[in-house]
């Protein structure tokens, strides 16, 4: 029975014995092999021969060894159609659209969020006025962790590293004068729980403005990995309940907001927390496999669900690894959807993604160097064929970016898009002996790690038991050691340090008075709203949680009548109880 087989076993069984149309003739390869050996012994220096494989040590790298030179021998059974295909054709290695960036530019979606809704609204307008093509809203710590601005736990943190949202009124202010039916909006609701609370506020706002939900376009994150693994917080609900809310969100949004991307499997924050690029993708795919399995169990059609799945990746410093990773995961996702789930729609087999350059690779020392780092990471992402991009700002090892720094990030994207000519040709690195060999290697490694997770009982069990927590702790401790030993070299930090300190940079200052303003607005709302309606809605939500009904229609009703985020999260905690995640060190 297929249910008992792992994804890797299913793919192996389905792909076994397929006849391959080899690009390289075996006789030619044999001749090449002989010449290659001769070249290696006669031309290559002995020290290079002995160190034929070198392993790049980079921030968040996968430690995959590289040969000194790649040739057709690195990928002898290369089948162009089977392994690559043209762009817009399965397995989509070369890109999900035939014309890629000629048809649609990558969306320039810079993260925005600080202070109160008013300040964030201004910054969003600033970015759009300078050519940004999408909105990407980041929430403050209390909002992300689901506490109201007036909660004792929120003190001193309202409007920090994101925008404060307590109710539908704040959501309305963030999007003041923004045409919701025209721009695409990414709401960085990392967790399933806060997605179930914040997205209904967005929907209630659209209702108030008379915009039908089927005209709303954008995405939420809605990822259990973020809520239960990549988070440090005071209170957690148990992983199975969290996973259920993730699926409830998907079910509701698919049904009611058809153009909205209801899940963005977030490899980014996981990797930034501390994993290799391989684990990042293996975890996101395992979560996606578990989710689609659950949606099928709930009686939904695989294509109905999968057509709106999206991913979020972190391109870090190893340039070719990043390009190859994006190509590899596109091909693997195609195979999973086609062969494991039997998807029929091409769209279901598209690995669509947003990426953000790596935050942890940014250095405090000589911060302008970060502009260069982020630009190369962004370039790798574009070579990798991403749909949407955020470039980190050079000052982020100090604080939230200034307006000037945020603009430079947008300009980085615009320069890649308009000045380099890179976007005129689809998958320009495709066919490189090196890139194709690395793409194959990374695909194999990702699938092996998916297999490891599935053999350990599946994704939710792997989270529940702390398997992933442990793996992360080992990784980042090891990475720190490699940086301290100088194995990972960072310019201006542990190599080529500047003998004289450089002048300080201008750093962002948070606006003042945000916490008081938020508290006053929330107090005003609590006086004006019909508290009886609020209580009824919250009681109905608790009942839905306990009875296993989809929770989103109930959080939506709560949002409509003016319930706050903290009030809804309290209901979740009461209904599901609390869970204590393992901490390994």
């Amino acid at each position, binding site marked *: 029975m297929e249910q008992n087989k792992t994804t890797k076993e299913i793919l192996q069984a389905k792909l076994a014995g397929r006849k391959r149309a080899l690009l390289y003739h075996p006789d030619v390869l044999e001749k090449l092999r002989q010449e290659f050996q001769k070249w290696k012994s006669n031309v290559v220096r002995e020290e290079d021969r002995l160190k034929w494989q070198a392993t790049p040590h980079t921030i968040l790298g996968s430690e995959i060894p590289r040969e000194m030179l790649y040739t057709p021998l690195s990928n002898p059974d290369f089948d162009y159609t089977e392994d690559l295909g043209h762009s817009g054709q399965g397995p989509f290695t070369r890109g999900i659209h035939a014309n890629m960036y000629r048809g649609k530019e990558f969306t320039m979606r810079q993260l925005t969020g600080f202070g109160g809704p008013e300040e964030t609204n201004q910054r969003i307008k600033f970015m759009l006025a300078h050519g940004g093509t999408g909105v990407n809203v980041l929430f403050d*710590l*209390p909002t*992300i*962790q689901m*506490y109201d601005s007036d909660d*004792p*736990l*929120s*003190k*001193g*943190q309202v409007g*920090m*590293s994101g925008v404060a949202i307590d109710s539908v009124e704040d959501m309305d202010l963030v999007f003041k004068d923004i045409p919701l039916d025209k721009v695409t909006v990414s709401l960085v609701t990392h967790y399933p729980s806060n997605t179930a609370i914040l997205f209904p506020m967005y929907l209630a706002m659209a209702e108030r403005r008379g915009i039908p939900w089927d005209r709303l376009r954008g995405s939420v994150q809605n990822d259990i990995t973020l809520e239960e693994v*990549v*988070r*440090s*917080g*005071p209170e957690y609900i148990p992983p199975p309940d969290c996973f259920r809310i993730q699926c409830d969100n998907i079910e509701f949004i698919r049904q009611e907001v058809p153009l909205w991307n209801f899940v963005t499997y977030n490899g980014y924050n996981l990797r930034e*927390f*501390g994993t290799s690029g391989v684990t990042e993708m293996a975890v996101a795919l395992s979560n996606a496999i578990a989710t689609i399995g659950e949606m099928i169990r709930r009686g939904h059609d695989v294509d109905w669900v999968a057509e709106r799945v999206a991913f979020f990746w972190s391109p870090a410093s190893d340039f070719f690894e990043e390009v190859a990773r994006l190509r590899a995961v596109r091909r693997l996702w195609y195979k999973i959807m086609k062969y494991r789930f039997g998807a029929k729609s091409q769209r279901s087999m598209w690995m669509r993604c947003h990426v953000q350059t790596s935050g*942890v690779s940014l*250095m*405090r*020392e000589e911060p302008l160097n970060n502009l260069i780092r982020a630009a190369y990471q962004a370039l790798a992402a574009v070579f990798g064929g991403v749909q949407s991009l955020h470039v980190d700002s050079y000052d982020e*090892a*100090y*604080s*939230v970016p200034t307006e000037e720094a945020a603009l430079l990030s947008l300009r980085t994207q615009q320069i890649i898009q308009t000045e380099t000519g890179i976007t005129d040709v689809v998958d320009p690195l495709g066919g490189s002996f090196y890139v194709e060999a690395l793409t194959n290697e990374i695909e194999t490694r990702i699938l092996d790690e998916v297999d490891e997770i599935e053999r350990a009982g599946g994704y939710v069990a792997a989270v529940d038991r702390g398997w992933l927590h442990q793996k992360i*702790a080992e990784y*980042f*401790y090891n990475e*720190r050691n490699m940086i*301290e030993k100088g194995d990972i070299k960072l310019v201006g*930090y542990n190599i080529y340090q500047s003998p004289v300190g450089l002048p*300080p940079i201008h*750093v*962002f200052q*948070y606006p003042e008075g945000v916490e008081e303003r938020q508290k006053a607005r929330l107090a005003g709302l609590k006086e004006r709203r019909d508290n009886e309606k609020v209580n009824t809605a919250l009681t109905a939500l608790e009942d839905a949680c306990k009875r296993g009904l989809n929770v989103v229609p109930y959080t939506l009703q709560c949002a409509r009548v003016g319930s706050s985020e903290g009030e809804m999260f309290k209901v979740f905690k009461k209904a599901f109880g609390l869970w204590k995640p393992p*901490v*390994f*060190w």
Partner: protein
Amino acid sequence: MARQIKVLLSKLGLDVHNRGLITVAKELRDAGMEVIYIGNSLPREIIRTAIQEGVDVVGVSSLGGAHLTLGGELIEEAKKEKFVEYVAFVIGGVFSPSDAEKLKEIGFHGVFMPGATREEIVSSIRKIVSGKAQRLQGE
């Protein structure tokens, strides 16, 4: 042989980023210190636990921007309990250069920013603790 240094580590408030602090926890333990990690907590709770546990060092981490507000409150709470005289207070996280100065003015004995090495963190904690012990003996 010196007495084992006992350290309490906590994330300040609702900050979600704990990679740095978990790394430091392991590094201090590997350096022979006894480490208690309590996850996310508020100043009053941190001080209460620190008193109960009788620690030598309180280390907090903040990458989300609340270092001055919550960090200030932590030192205030410690002063109320006359705790700040006996115990070393250190903070790590993402701060602007001027905020790092302010944190020292508030009363933090050690301020660590991105890029701080294991050696810097371990040795400066040892130095602060032994400095305090000598001063107290002298009194």
